[in-house]
């Protein structure tokens, strides 16, 4: 077939002759991501869709959920966010309990910034991409095609992943008993997860007397900043007992 002459053989989406489907790991990741997404939707979440380098993918994900192709499936709140100031757009849009899905490479600066801030905003994150993977734990669910070919985004590989995400999420809705999210993990007064080791907060504004107003997953609060250097709005702080104990480096993991 002459039309396939220019196509490298390395990747199944370019050359499906060698495509044996999804691997065990990616299919398990998709399953877990779908159950999480269904649970968040059941609890009232909105899905915010980002794809800074390939905006059509963000719009495609949103329209899948808002206007299902299968008649009778529930319409769910999903919105594509685009434009030059993506981090601030997500910041003002996403509420605690919401979900952000990004279709982006691991080095996309806006998506990396959103993913770093997610714990302070109280949102759940999904990241679809290809090539080099994001650092471990960069998002709650990473759905990744490992092929390094830069043309993957235009071959339908990502489309398949988010179609499957939509389909599996709706399968979860057929099991309402499993849609209740597990109970919050920190019922105790002293909890290693959120007290001893600190919570992430994002600085909203500077207050008088060495205090700063920060946004955390639990809402807004005023914290003392005497232990850290000069803080500015947008900085990420590790907070413990009403005190900012350190700044979180821009390029550090979550």
């Amino acid at each position: 077939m002459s039309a396939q002459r220019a196509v490298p053989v390395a990747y199944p989406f370019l050359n499906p002759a060698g495509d044996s489907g999804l691997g065990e790991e990616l299919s398990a990741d998709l399953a877990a991501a779908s159950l999480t997404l269904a649970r968040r939707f059941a609890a009232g979440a909105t899905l915010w869709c980002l794809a800074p380098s390939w905006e059509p993918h963000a719009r495609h994900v949103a329209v899948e959920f808002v206007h299902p192709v299968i008649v009778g499936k529930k319409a769910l709140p999903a919105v594509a966010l685009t434009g030059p100031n993506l981090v601030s757009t997500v910041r003002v849009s996403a509420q605690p309990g919401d979900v952000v899905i990004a279709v982006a490479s691991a080095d996309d600066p806006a998506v990396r910034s959103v993913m770093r801030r997610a714990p302070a905003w109280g949102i759940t994150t999904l990241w679809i991409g290809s090539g080099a993977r994001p650092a471990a734990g960069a998002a709650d669910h990473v759905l990744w095609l490992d092929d390094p070919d830069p043309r993957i985004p235009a071959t339908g590989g990502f489309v398949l992943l988010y179609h499957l995400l939509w389909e599996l999420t709706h399968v979860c809705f057929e099991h309402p008993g499993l849609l209740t999210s597990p109970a919050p993990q920190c019922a105790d007064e002293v909890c290693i997860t959120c007290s001893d080791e600190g919570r992430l907060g994002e600085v909203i504004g500077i207050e008088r007397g060495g205090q700063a107003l920060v946004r955390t997953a639990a809402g807004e609060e005023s914290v003392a900043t005497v232990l850290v250097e000069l803080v500015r709005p947008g900085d990420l702080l590790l907070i413990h007992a009403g005190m900012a104990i350190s700044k979180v480096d821009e390029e550090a993991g979550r």
Partner: protein
Amino acid sequence: MTGPTPGSLPLRAAEATAFLYPFLDAEEWDQDSLLADLAASARAKARESASLRRSTLQASAPLLEAAATEMAHRLAAGGRIFTFGNGGSSTDATTLADLFASPPPAAPHAAKLTTRALPAWSLTADQAVLTALGNDVGFELVFARQLIARAKPGDIAIAMSTSGNSKDLAAAFREARRRSMYTIGFAGYDGGEFATSEDVDVCFVVRSQSVHRVQESQALLGYHLWAAVHEHLAVAGEH
């Protein structure tokens, strides 16, 4: 889920051995069973998608060659590409326009390609134009009117659809025909009206009843069309 449920085995196994693990409650087993079901379903659907992509590429090879030849001829002579579609297909049409409009990336195993980006636009890109036309002349004409304003003989119209029956796309193809554009339709199912329309020069049909599987194959077809066009332009450039 339709069809057999591949995850039913783990559930039965769970029931059979539950008495061995009294500390695990039924709900945990249910969740594990659902996750196993979901993962098996994802693998089955991905296999179905791959199989459809294979058969579609094979069946479309002669048409793809014909379309790429004519497109390369027109592009070399100054022709331009306009893509359009509705809903999810509009985003796939935009991805295709973006692909044509970007310089071919330097892939490590790239075949010999021209390095030039090509003039291509998605007709859903401008909300002001879309809503102005939708509001003033009706949605059916949102693409046809843009072609009236912009298209010349020698240009190329590409519409992506799953049904092949959308009225706004048919109206755009009628207008494209009047303007001597080359017209390429992407459709699913049996091709719908695209397959028999005299306004459509080449109709790629992805023979599936699933909108999602159709779109996945169409994306790959579009990619191969782009690659074949560049190959023809490279060959033409040598002579």
